[in-house]
């Protein structure tokens, strides 16, 4: 299935995106926001090769969408400007995975 210009794989009524770079996900965030999503949570994951990923789980129109985003140099952009509840989730991600959330990077996308 294609939504927000990216491919999703459907499994048991839930939608999982292919791997997308974090900056690409941020470009999509404005479109996603129009559908009034609810951020369920974000999951940090490090594979055996030392690559870091963040899975963003959203409830959009009573359906669950998971966006798999890849990070470069352990740097991520904060989404707490769009979803104020995300600040707690990001705090935990930075404590457990040492992911650095950069507000300057986020400001580039004028999310406010």
């Amino acid at each position, binding site marked *: 299935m294609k939504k927000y210009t990216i491919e999703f794989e459907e499994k048991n009524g839930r939608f999982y995106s292919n791997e997308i770079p974090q900056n690409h996900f941020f470009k999509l965030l404005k479109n996603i926001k129009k559908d009034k999503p609810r951020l369920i949570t974000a999951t940090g994951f490090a594979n055996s090769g030392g690559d870091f990923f963040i899975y963003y789980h959203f409830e959009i129109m*009573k359906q669950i969408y998971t966006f798999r985003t890849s990070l470069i140099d352990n740097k991520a952009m904060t989404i707490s400007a769009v979803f104020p509840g995300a600040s707690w989730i990001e705090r935990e991600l930075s404590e457990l995975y040492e992911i650095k959330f950069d507000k300057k990077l986020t400001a580039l996308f004028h999310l406010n």
Partner: protein
Amino acid sequence: MKQVKNIKLGPKSCVFEEPFIAHLKTRGKKIVGVDFELGFLHRGIERLATRKNFYQNLGLVERICGYCSFTHSLAYSQAVEDVSNIKASPRALYIRTIIAELERLHSHLLWLYLEVNKIGFGGASSYLVQLREGILSLLVKITGGRIMYEINTFGGVLKDAPNLEDAEKQTQVFADIAKRLVILFEENKAVKEITGGKGILTNQKAIELGAVGPTARASGVKIDVRKDEPYAAYGDLLDKKHTILFGGDVYSRIYLRFIETAESFEIIHKAIKNIPAGDIKLPGGYVFVPAGEGMGRVEAPRGELFHFIKTNSSNNPMRLKVKPPTYNNLPAVGEMLIGADREDAALIISSIDPCFSCTER
């Protein structure tokens, strides 16, 4: 202009059941800033889960929390079933529903007992704690455990519930007591005076901050996993109508839980009436978990509980993420406290029924 003072509540406080610190900034009597400090109960359960096999984790996730042990194992089982593309047997789904509702009852009743004691509504508190004791003895009869049940497995449950007729008779008596307690609560004007208009969370803020469960429903947000994405046997037993209140204050949050207590009894009656005969688990026993991703969503007593699992066809999960409901509700507490009197801080914080064992896992 009055000076800003810092007040520290916790980590050990007689009004809270679990250790945490609330840093309050006050100007005069009013609270102007809030921050929470957690970390006293962190056990590293998500990390530990990656070192144990899928079946060992069923016991591990039950130990995240004592109030909602069954819902944790239910969400985890659903996540593994999602990855493995298996479905639990119909009878097992009904047994899961009955135990999940009994657990909601014992959690709600304990919280109500503690909360009404804080506001001096002692008349109801003794009934509430006795009612909870009755629910716990019922859980012992059905599962064999008061708090830890360990009856969930992938594709069903490990233990059948043979004497459900007796359980139905008992729950009918409990349901009558619960209905009378709701009337007792509604008629008490002192409770409304103490709790009404305090710790207000508006509908817009509840949505913005992502509040879940009774905290969000007391602010008029239609959110309930049992109705939005029915799991277990809820699809057969519930309609799509949400039970919500619009006050958004402490009174609404207490009142809603009283209403939900009465509703849970109705769900249990319906489930016992309609439970199908048949196997309680899949034939064959051991479930092979393939590589992939899966999730389990459950409406725990405090709100949406979410388990996300990533597997690589080995015996252990690569990652288990547990998102408890209090995690979503904590940012909303900050909003409730700003502008409130500092004397009401403990009442407002406890009004979301915070569970820090779940939150810190």
